[in-house]
């Protein structure tokens, strides 16, 4: 009796059209949440505890075992930026990417730069100390300089409305200040990064976006724990 009920429950889960596996804090999953919300798409959310992954998550993402995973009609999609493009191609309202090919290429370039360079360089500032941290700050600020210049004459990276690049850089609007507070380093100030600070304000308070921020106090606690691990003696580099 119990096992047939479980089978039915699983079948019901599989039949539900759109579901998103995420964690409360994942900056990558948050991009997908925003994209779906901006387009007014209904979906089910499954919150994962990454120290105890559900069998369903492992079934859908057996190799990387990560979030986010978006499952549409039983088919899994991985990698937040790939998922965003899929969402944009499948639901055409409130487009995340412009129509012009060179503008699209530019957007993809900056989204990738954010993940490949900006994010790791800022994380580097967070986990390092002393002279190493000073050097890391220089690199991070160089990268942020490129990002700052992209905002020249624009409210959002996408222009007047929020787009893929804004969602990709969303973590700058909440996590950056959390990391700055926890590790005691300041990366962006009004003198060098006025446009970025303005963007952070506009993005953080934007309708739909603002509904989904994870609680700041919980993030502080989480990253304080991370910071302790990284800065204790014999911490992994």
């Amino acid at each position, binding site marked *: 009796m119990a096992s047939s009920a479980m089978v039915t429950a699983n079948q019901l889960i599989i039949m539900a059209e759109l579901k998103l596996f995420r964690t409360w804090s994942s900056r990558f999953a948050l991009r997908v949440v925003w994209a779906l919300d901006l387009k007014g798409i209904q979906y089910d959310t499954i919150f994962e505890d990454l120290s105890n992954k559900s069998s369903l998550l492992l079934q859908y993402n057996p190799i990387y075992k990560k979030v986010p995973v978006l499952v549409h009609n039983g088919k899994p999609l*991985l*990698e937040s930026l790939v998922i965003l493009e*899929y969402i944009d*191609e*499948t639901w055409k309202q409130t487009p995340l990417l412009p129509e012009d*090919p060179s503008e699209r*290429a530019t957007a*993809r*370039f900056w989204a990738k730069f954010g993940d490949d*360079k900006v994010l790791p360089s800022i994380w580097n500032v967070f986990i390092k100390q002393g002279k190493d941290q000073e050097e890391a700050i220089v690199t991070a600020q160089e990268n942020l300089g490129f990002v700052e210049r992209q905002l020249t004459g624009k409210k959002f990276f996408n222009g007047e409305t929020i787009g893929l690049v804004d969602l990709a850089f969303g973590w700058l609007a909440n996590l950056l200040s959390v990391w700055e507070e926890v590790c005691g380093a300041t990366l962006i100030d009004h003198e060098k990064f006025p446009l970025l600070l303005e963007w952070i304000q506009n993005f953080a308070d934007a309708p739909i976006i603002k509904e989904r921020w994870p609680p700041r106090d919980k993030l502080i606690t989480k990253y304080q724990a991370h910071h302790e691990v990284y800065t204790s003696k014999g911490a992994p580099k």
Partner: protein
Amino acid sequence: MAEDSVKLLGYWASPFALRVKWALKLKGIQYQYVEEDLPNKSPMLLQYNPVYKKVPVLVHDDKPLAESLVILEYIDEVWKHNPLLPTDPYERAKARFGPNLPKTSKKGEEKEKAAKEARENLKTLESGLEGKRFFGGETIGFVDIAAGWIGCWAQMTGEIIGIKLIDAKTMPLLDAWFKDFLEVPFIKECMPPQDKLLEHNKEFHKILTAAST
């Protein structure tokens, strides 16, 4: 399209520039090729790609684009014949995810670990070939062009570090695909001379391992 309007800045031994050459060739796009002398980057390259200062850079109607996979998508959107990506959004997502292999470390001591990771990544790629001649199906597509360099470079890296990366027994589809792919005339045409490339990669490997000691 006139040749003047498309320009590619590349380097003969760059697998990423090779991706773009293949895509342009597949679509029959005329272009001007500029070979960069990488130890002495040209002011033009630095102007066109100030963020990474790397090749490839595609310049179309005076607009520069960097990052090879971004360039491939751009080419596919502007020149719609001989499409690289499929039309179905889910298939497109799978193709975009395809070249997404976790980076492996190259340092000397971690050689065994790196080789193991590389083989895992290759096995993942293998599963995308089931029932197909190319990743794109009957014709060459986005993943073929994005991953094509791996066959040649994996072979060479295997020789250089003394560990075989592509195993015909555990990766039969990949092994067959590499051979098949590299024999396609327009693919073969663009490949750099193998002996020169092996020497270049050996030198590069020496520099990398020296830097980590």
